[in-house]
């Protein structure tokens, strides 16, 4: 019977789905077998946690397990939204993101534009090579370096402050400097690395354009303004949209390293709050999971919106 079905299927030119599957499996079983550990890893470490989100709607008790714990509906969400932490963590996250957008985002663009104007090829290469270095060190090392540079007693920054007649400032112990330190350390760590995409876009510009402009009497600023900047504007738009879409994300590692108890009121972002409530102090898994889900949903909506805008702004643009 099965044989007959198969015969008629092959006679009609196409196999049924299970038969096609069996044939593919027989022919390529080695490749599928190779892929099995990959599937298992993704199932365990990516898909199982997605299923675990249900604890956001439960009163999760470790001893009872996920399924036996009681459903509580939206209670965890309403508890978070009505808590003071909701306003402060969202405000901190968004303010830090906007500051990064205003300063850390344009910095690599400006750096790329200026670096491109350096005549000496060796000099250009050297600056570029050095500028990548901070990208490869950990935030722990970067944070340690910042703590030393900003130290009130031995740090070079306070040396400069004293040199100009000021009195030493405890930069990392005061809340009002904390967000700026985050932005400055982001710039320090990401300047050279962030410039790569822009330098690549600039490198793609036809040299003849510059030559023609020079013959027409265009000075350096005019060439930057009319040739270089337009040539990277597409890349800038895409990068900007990506950045706006992640406005609710913060760099947990950076903040975790740089923050201390005295600056938490201005530095505690949503992600830091999830860590603190869920893993660090109270082990309130359900509340922390609810905050995480809330953030993901809002964040995903933001990405969809920014992507839709990008499609409109640049034709054929959009990230997907």
């Amino acid at each position, binding site marked *: 019977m099965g044989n007959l079905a198969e015969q008629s299927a092959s006679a009609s030119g196409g196999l049924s789905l299970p038969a096609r599957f069996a044939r593919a499996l027989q022919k390529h079983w080695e490749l599928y077998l190779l892929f099995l550990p990959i599937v298992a890893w993704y199932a365990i470490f990516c898909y199982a946690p997605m299923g675990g989100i249900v604890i956001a709607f439960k009163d999760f008790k470790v001893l009872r397990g996920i399924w036996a714990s009681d459903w509580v509906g939206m209670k965890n969400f309403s508890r978070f939204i009505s808590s003071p932490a909701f306003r402060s963590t969202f405000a901190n996250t968004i303010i830090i993101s906007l500051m990064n957008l205003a300063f850390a985002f344009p910095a690599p663009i400006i750096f790329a534009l200026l670096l491109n104007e350096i005549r000496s090829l060796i000099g250009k290469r050297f600056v570029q090579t*050095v500028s990548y270095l901070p990208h490869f060190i950990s935030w722990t090392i970067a944070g340690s370096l910042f703590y030393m540079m900003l130290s009130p007693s031995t740090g070079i920054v306070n040396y400069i402050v004293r040199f100009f007649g000021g009195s030493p400032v405890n930069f990392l112990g005061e809340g009002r400097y904390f967000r700026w330190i985050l932005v400055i350390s982001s710039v320090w760590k990401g300047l050279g690395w962030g410039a790569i995409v822009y330098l690549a876009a600039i490198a793609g510009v036809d040299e003849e354009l510059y030559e023609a402009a020079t013959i027409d009497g265009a000075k350096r600023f005019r060439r930057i303004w009319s040739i270089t900047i337009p040539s990277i504007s597409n890349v800038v738009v895409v990068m900007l949209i990506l950045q706006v879409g992640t406005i609710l994300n913060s760099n947990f590692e950076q903040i975790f390293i740089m923050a201390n108890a005295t600056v938490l009121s201005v530095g505690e972002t949503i992600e830091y709050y999830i860590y603190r409530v869920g893993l660090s102090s109270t082990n309130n898994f359900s509340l922390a999971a609810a905050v995480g889900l809330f953030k993901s949903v809002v964040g*995903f909506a933001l990405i969809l919106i920014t992507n839709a805008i990008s499609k409109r702004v640049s034709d054929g643009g959009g990230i997907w």
Partner: protein
Amino acid sequence: MKSYRKTPGETLFAALNTLFMAFILLVTLYPFWYIAVGSVSSVAHIFSQGMLLWPDQLSLAAYEFVIGTKGVSSALGNSAFITVAGTLLSMALTTMGAYVLSKPYLPGRKTMTLFIVVTMLFNGGLIPFYLVVKSLGMIDTIWAMMIPYAISTYNMIIMRNFLQAVPRSLEESAMVDGARHFTIFAKIYLPLSMPVIATVTLFYAVGYWNSIIPAIYFLNRRDFIPIQVILREVLIQSRPEALQFIDSATSQISENIKMALVVITVAPIAVIYPFLQKYFVKGVMVGSIKG
């Protein structure tokens, strides 16, 4: 570019621009110079200099002391193990996955690619992830530092894109000769894809050496903590007990010892940096080409 007569404004711009680049170099490199100089200097020298530029001596005492402490020596061992074992694990899985996904003729390839790419957009968040790792019994084991982070989807896609470019005819002729996939990979793909293998290996190795967050999430006991955790405790939290001296009466860690610790932690990155920056930049470019 063609030579042309410079206006005074352009000369000024060029001068200011060069000055700006010098400033960037200074700001980037001075912190590294500072720790290198300070780590071989005397403590008195560090405090007497407003701006540390040169060492007053070339003493390795701070290094000897730091490496001699139980806290640092065991953490360095942990970090080395995590980096080597983690990178091997990651490379094995990533290469396998990328190789399979690079086969254009494989039925179901699109679904399989989607299966892994979806995880770049959605994830369960920290708490469910933590509970999975906990339920696997990995809390307070060194495996929690590697296995949950073994695959980077981004790296797998980079590698797949590269492997896809290997001409199919090479594989077909080898198959005619009766070669199996293992031989095909080892004899054909591996030699052709050394640049991307080097890039991705470095990506993973640097990531493992630098990683601190898994230790913060998953390690409560101190048996397996990596060097980055010690660095944070000593430099940022000022907790001298992290070093676990034999003489527990020491209540403060002198400045040159702190600097030596940073130098030790940064050293592996600095040593491979010439390769890093060559391959990484290439890797970023490969990754930006959609496959």
